[in-house]
C-alpha cells in the first residue's frame, strides 16, 4: 500500500532576497519515517512551517491526502490529521503538563468556539493524556507547570501534545536538538516505536547518526532544494550529498 498522506507541489518561499525554499516537491507515504536533513539554512524548518501552514508559500501547493490545503490555516490542517512539534519548545505556560496534553486530546470539545461553551467535563481527555504521558514516562510531572521542567521534558511534552492530537502524519522539527546522548537515544527509540505502530513521521534532524538509524527514507536539502531522495544508506554515499552536508560535518568533527 503506498498512498500519499502529505504532499507539496513546487513550493517556493523567499524571505527578503533570500530564497529559503526553492521549488520543493515532496510526498510523504503512509507508514514511512521520512528523514529530512540538510546543512543549516537548507530550508528544513521553513518546509515544515509551509506544510503546517504557519507560513504561507509564495507559490506552490500543499495537499493532505487528495485535498489542496494551501489556503487553510494551521488549526484546520491539524484537524485534518497533521501534528507538529516545534524546534524551539513552545509549552503553553499557565497550563499544567496534563492540561497541555488534555487540550490537544480535546479536539472534539474545541472544534467550534461556540460549541465549546457547552463542553465542561474533561474525564475522557485527561485519561487519554495520562496514557500518553505514561508512554513518554512523564506521568510523575503531569501536575507540574512547564516552567518548572528542564528542556528534555519540554521536548517530550511537545511530543506528548502532538501524539494527543492522534495525527495521521507527525512532523517533528529537530526533536533531539539540545538533548544529551542518552535522552536523544530514548526519544529516537520512541520515534521508531511510534513508526512501528503505524504512525507516519517526518523527522527534521541535525543529529545525523540518529536520523540514519531511524529513517526509512531520506531527503537531503541544500539551499532550499532537494538534492537527494532515497534510502538512507544509499543517499549518504552520493557525492553531491557528501559535498553539501557530510563534507561539512566531517570537517567539523
Amino acid at each position, binding site marked *: 500500500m503506498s498512498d500519499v498522506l502529505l504532499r507539496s507541489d513546487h513550493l517556493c518561499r523567499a524571505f527578503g532576497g533570500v530564497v529559503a525554499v526553492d521549488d520543493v516537491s515532496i510526498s510523504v507515504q503512509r507508514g514511512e519515517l521520512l528523514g529530512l536533513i540538510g546543512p543549516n539554512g537548507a530550508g528544513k524548518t521553513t518546509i515544515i512551517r509551509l506544510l*503546517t501552514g*504557519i507560513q504561507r508559500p509564495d507559490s506552490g501547493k500543499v495537499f493532505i491526502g487528495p485535498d489542496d490545503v494551501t489556503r487553510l*490555516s*494551521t*488549526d*484546520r490542517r*491539524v*484537524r485534518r490529521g497533521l*501534528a*507538529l512539534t*516545534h524546534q524551539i519548545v*513552545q*509549552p*503553553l*505556560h*499557565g*497550563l499544567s503538563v496534563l*492540561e497541555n496534553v*488534555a*487540550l*490537544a486530546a*480535546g*479536539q472534539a*470539545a*474545541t*472544534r*467550534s*468556539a*461556540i460549541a*465549546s*461553551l457547552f*463542553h*465542561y467535563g*474533561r474525564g475522557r481527555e485527561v485519561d487519554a493524556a495520562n496514557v500518553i504521558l505514561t508512554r513518554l514516562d512523564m506521568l510523575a510531572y503531569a501536575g507540574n507547570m512547564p516552567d518548572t521542567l528542564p528542556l528534555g521534558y519540554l521536548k517530550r511534552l511537545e511530543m506528548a*501534545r502532538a501524539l494527543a*492530537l492522534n495525527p495521521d502524519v507527525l512532523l517533528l522539527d529537530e526533536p533531539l536538538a539540545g538533548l544529551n546522548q542518552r535522552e536523544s537515544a530514548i526519544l529516537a527509540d520512541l520515534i521508531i516505536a511510534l513508526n512501528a505502530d503505524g504512525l507516519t513521521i517526518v523527522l527534521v534532524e541535525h543529529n545525523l547518526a540518529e536520523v540514519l538509524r531511524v529513517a526509512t527514507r531520506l531527503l537531503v536539502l541544500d539551499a532550499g532544494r532537494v538534492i537527494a531522495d532515497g534510502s538512507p544508506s544509499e543517499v549518504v554515499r552520493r557525492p553531491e550529498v557528501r559535498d553539501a552536508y557530510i563534507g561539512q560535518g566531517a570537517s567539523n568533527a
Partner: protein
Amino acid sequence: MTGYHLSLISLTGIMIVFAVSLNMIMGLCGQVSLGHAAFYGVGAYVTAMMSAGGVPTLYALPVGMLIAGLMGLIVGFASLRVRDDFLAITTLAVGFLFVGVVRKSRALGGEFGISGIPESGLGPAGDAFLVAFCVVLTVALSVYLSRNWTGLAFRSISANEEAAQTLGINSAHYKLLAFCIGCALAGLAGGLYANYARFIVPGTFGFSLSITAAAMVVIGGIGSTAGVVAGAVLLTLFPEIFRFLGDYRMLVYGALLVGVMLFQPKGLAGIPSMVRRWAGPR
C-alpha cells in the same frame, strides 16, 4: 440601610459586572483592551434611549447587551489583525471614537447626554436586587468559563497563540467569542448604570473609566474571577474612603497600579498563596 449605602452597593455591583466582563477578554483570553468603557457606554445609551422611549428596563437591558456584544464582535476583528501593544492602541482609539461620536450626536443628546431616564418601577430595593442578580450571573458565567473547554482554549491562546493553533485551536473564533461575551456583559453593566444614575453624559464613558476597569483587573489579579471582584470592590469604594485625598486620588491609583505590577503581579488573587507560603512550614 440608608439610600447612600444602597446606592453604593448598586454601584459596586455594576462595577463588578464591568470589571469581570473585561477580565474575560484580558484575563481569560489575554487580549488587551483599553477601550472597554465604550461598550459600557453602548449598553448605557441603548438602555437609556429605550427606557426614555417607554420600553420597560427589563426588556431594554438585553437589547443593550446584544448591541454592545455586536459592537464587541466588530472590534474583535481588530484583534485578529493586531496584537499586544497595537491592540491596546486600537482599542484605546475605539474608546475615544465612541465618546467623540456621542458628543457630536444630536440624537444621543450630545454633550448634555440623556436625562430624565424613567425609573424601572422595581423600587430602590428591587433595583439593587436586579444588580445583585446580574452580579451573581456574571460571576457564575466567569467561573464556568474559566473551567470549561472554552476557558482552556482561551488560556492556551493567552499563553501562546501560535502553539494553540498547532493544537487545532481556531484562535480567531475564540478571540471573537471573548470580545463578544465580554462586551455584551459590559453593555449589561452600562444598562444597569443608566437605570441606576437615570442621567448619563458622554464624559462618563471615557478613557478614565476604561483605565479604572483595567486597574480593577490588574490589581485584583489578571484571570482570577475572585480577585477581579475584590479589585472592583476595592477600587469602587476607594474613592469614597479616600475622598479626603481630593485630586490626589488618581495619583494614588497610578502608584497602586505600578506597585502591583512590579511587586505583586498576581494581584489580590495572589495574596492567599503568598500568606500560605509565609505561614506554612519550611
